[in-house]
């Protein structure tokens, strides 16, 4: 049995994952927990939220996120790669800032208008 705290919502359910029984999840309160529990043991992923530099805007930085969850071990590498990115204002929410970041098949998108 593997014990995990679900990060799907602020409730933070204590999940139990049975690795000897097709990774069956118990202790969840909703479907998010079932998917998270199994995924977290087999292939942990996270949505990355960070910033890129922006020029001619109200602030120096534009908040961005990965359009889908990235493999957990890629987070720091992708974050580092984004330090080199500079965009120009105006940018719209959901606009693609970097396509297919580090060949992960996942885009980096803006999370606000700026």
């Amino acid at each position, binding site marked *: 049995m593997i014990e*995990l*705290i*679900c*990060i*799907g*919502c*602020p409730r*933070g359910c204590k999940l139990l994952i049975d690795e000897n029984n097709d990774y069956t999840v118990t202790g969840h309160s909703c479907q998010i927990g079932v998917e998270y529990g199994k995924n977290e043991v087999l292939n942990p992923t*996270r*949505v*990355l*939220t*960070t*910033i890129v*530099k922006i020029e001619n805007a*109200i*602030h*120096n*930085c534009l*908040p961005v*996120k990965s359009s889908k969850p990235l493999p*957990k071990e890629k*987070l*720091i590498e992708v*974050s*580092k790669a984004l*330090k080199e990115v500079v965009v120009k204002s105006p940018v719209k*929410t959901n606009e693609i800032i970097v396509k297919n970041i580090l060949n992960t098949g996942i885009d980096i998108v803006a*999370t*606000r*208008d700026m």
Partner: protein
Amino acid sequence: MYDLIVVGAGPAGLSAALTAYENGLKKILVVERDKEMGGILNQCIHNGFGLHLFKKELTGPEFAGRFIEKIKETDIEIMLDTMVLDMDKNKNVYILNTNGYKKLSAKAIILAMGCRERTRGAIATPGDRGAGVYTAGAAQRYMNMNGYSVGNKVVILGSGDIGLIMARRMTLEGAKVLACIEINPYSAGLRRNIKQCLEDFDIPLYLSHTITDIKCTNNRVSKVIISKVDEAYNIIEGSEIEIKCDTVLLSIGLIPENELSKEADITIDERTKGPVVYENMETSVEGIFCCGNVVQVHDLADNVAMEAKKAAKAACKYILEEKTFVREIKVEANKPITYTIPQKIHLPIEEKVVDISFRTNKVLDKCVIKVTNSNGEVVCKYPREYVIPAELEKINVPVSLIKDEQNSITIYIEED
């Protein structure tokens, strides 16, 4: 003359203004001291917002964006870069901006100023006074909006959610977060944040520890000494650990920002540092309402926005309808409950239930929350798997159970 003036354009203020607009108020003004709407959400670039309100996981700026877009479709007036200097109980608001000083009046006011961070001075952390000691929220703004590098080797004091979020942020930005230090035997942050911000990056959490010295070299933090504390929070001699670092982030709590409320003679609850409120978020001054972190520190922006809706609906009712309240009853709380919101309930009210939220200062396993009337009779019970200080607890008390002859109800918790 405005119908409604809202002070603050964060999640509480924006949600309140929109709700008031949707409920028929015409002349609404939102006053904001920053140069844009959104408040603290603009620097909270992480996700986890909106799950309750929008059924979708959003980042802070996305959550704010949903309100800002809707506001822009209305004729709600937004005054940015404007400071409210003073306010009185006759609902006059005195503002200052680049156009000068002006007195504005409204039929009702909603206070949505939020809160500010506790600083090193608040907990009297000893040591040198060099550069490199920041509150977690200030560091968050420097990093996420100004693009400054805050530090390379970081120790975080306090395990509040902002500190935990910053532990992850700084790690992703290439800094090494060496430790998170919490004086209590339990974390002050949400469990999911302990998991995804500390455990994901192998950052150690020292419970029952505190910083007992900060040393600087060339006016910059160079190391901290941490010590273990006993159950009475006394420092245990000989337990010192030295950690070499250049930055200390403080995540040691938030205080509702109520200087303005005090100017208007609004009664403040010494426990919450926020206004004493009725079930409809009205303060002790008729026609002045409040919502969000200016009332109590919430765990979630979603709950702030929902509380703001309640305040806005009550403000609309106050302006558009006849007053029907005849009397009021008090909401009392027994240990380990530290306070309740609301502290008072108007009677009679149309609503079928009253939401009461509170925090405890103790971790409780399987327990039952009970509500008694003035005669000491239990009128309702709420079983819980656990109650922890880090999570705001909520109960819905049916109004039908609050009898007319009563003058108070009391909330307490019994462990199983």
